[in-house]
């Protein structure tokens, strides 16, 4: 899904760049409310996991490959704004270091893999939470569904961008069907990984899952005197 240099024309790249910059700007301001000095490391770990997850490539049709995105996972764990920042950081590192995703396409990639998956994932997650019973047990499956939905949506947006500013003369309809087909499959993988990770974290450290925090009750401390 990473868009390389020269894949979209200049106007589209610039436009997505502006959107990405605006989104990251808002996220930077909003993230202050999500972060304290203990959760900054958490954001780093989420970024590392997203990074690792994106390294796992599934071979999908026609010799190309797709990979997990992690936007929804990040949004559930650290909140949508910090989640967007995590994914953006991953994309910067990948562009500068791994040559995965073009430097001039960074804006496009932030929009596709960061903004779309994190926000769509989070909206779906909250919407489901609103209708489901408020229990810790529902957090992981809800996150999995959110992750599943976020991936094909991102693929659709990709196809849209390609139709507007693609440099290769390929029929946009073909691209859309192919992308959606693959990414429904990738979405299943995404859902499994997201569900497993969120489930494990909720089980032992619910305080680390932002999306579960309203469900964690404060505990009373017990004081013991000795010789009892």
């Amino acid at each position, binding site marked *: 899904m990473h868009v390389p240099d020269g894949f979209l024309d200049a106007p589209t790249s610039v436009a997505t760049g502006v959107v990405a910059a605006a989104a990251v700007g808002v996220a930077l301001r909003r993230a202050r409310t999500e972060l304290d000095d203990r959760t900054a490391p958490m954001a780093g770990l989420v970024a590392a996991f997203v990074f690792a997850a994106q390294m796992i490539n599934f071979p999908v049709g026609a010799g190309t490959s797709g990979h997990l995105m992690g936007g929804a996972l990040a949004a559930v764990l650290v909140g949508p704004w910090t989640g967007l920042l995590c994914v953006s950081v991953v994309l910067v590192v990948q562009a*500068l270091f791994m040559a995965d995703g073009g430097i001039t396409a960074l804006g496009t990639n932030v929009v596709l893999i960061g903004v779309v998956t994190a926000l769509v994932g989070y909206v779906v997650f909250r919407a489901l939470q609103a209708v489901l019973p408020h229990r810790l047990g529902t957090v992981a499956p809800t996150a999995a569904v959110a992750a599943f939905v976020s991936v094909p949506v991102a693929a659709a947006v990709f196809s849209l961008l390609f139709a507007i500013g693609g440099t290769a003369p390929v029929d946009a309809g073909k691209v859309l069907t192919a992308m959606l087909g693959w990414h429904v499959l990738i979405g299943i993988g995404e859902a499994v990984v997201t569900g*497993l990770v969120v489930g494990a974290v909720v089980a032992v450290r619910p305080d680390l899952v932002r999306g579960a925090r309203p469900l964690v009750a404060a505990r009373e401390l017990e004081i013991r005197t000795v010789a009892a």
Partner: protein
Amino acid sequence: MGAAHGHRLHHHGHSAVHRAPAHLKILVLVGFVLLVVATPREWYAVFAAYAAVVVGTVLVARVPLGWVLRRMVVEVPFLVFAALVPFVAEGPRTEVLGLTVSEPGLVAAWGLAVKGTIGVMASLTLAATTEPTDVLVGLRRLRMPPLLVEIMSFMLRYLDVVTADLGRTLTAMRSRGCEPRSPRHWPVLARSLGALFIRSYERGERVHLAMLSRGYTGTLPTTTGGHEHR
């Protein structure tokens, strides 16, 4: 366990390219790639010149060319896509090696492949000659928002922690009679994925706290001597 051990893409060296300040290298890289992308794809000779610039830089940095080429596999899926374009693209057809392909598709494929390849090589050159910690310093200099730099530095640290923990986990599994490579054991691997996440997080948290308890305030101190020549 720190972020400073280099990484798979780094090629240790002391050339002028290695020593150049990171923020300059990043600026040059971004400018260069912009230039490449803006160049019309029919200017074949100019692309040859770009390629020469990149290869020249790699040679000056004394990074073996083969070393860089081997790391260019990340680009393969994309090249495959480019190779398919002439077959699925619209427009007038021509014959190449007995195959009927789209003519604009062919030009598009060339453009995609050459721009992508030069971009990938340029990025790899930066990666090969710059330590991650220096990139962080460079990005800070370039006014990247401090919060992003902070998340990035934690991410680089955690990549080490997660890799190390994964390695330990695999060793532990092997010595208790599990061969993680066989698909039979994938369900177990999947189940330990969540545990790996928390374990890495908590280990990283403890390391972070250990840093704090030795007076860390958010920026690594520059220590003298020794660490230049490892």
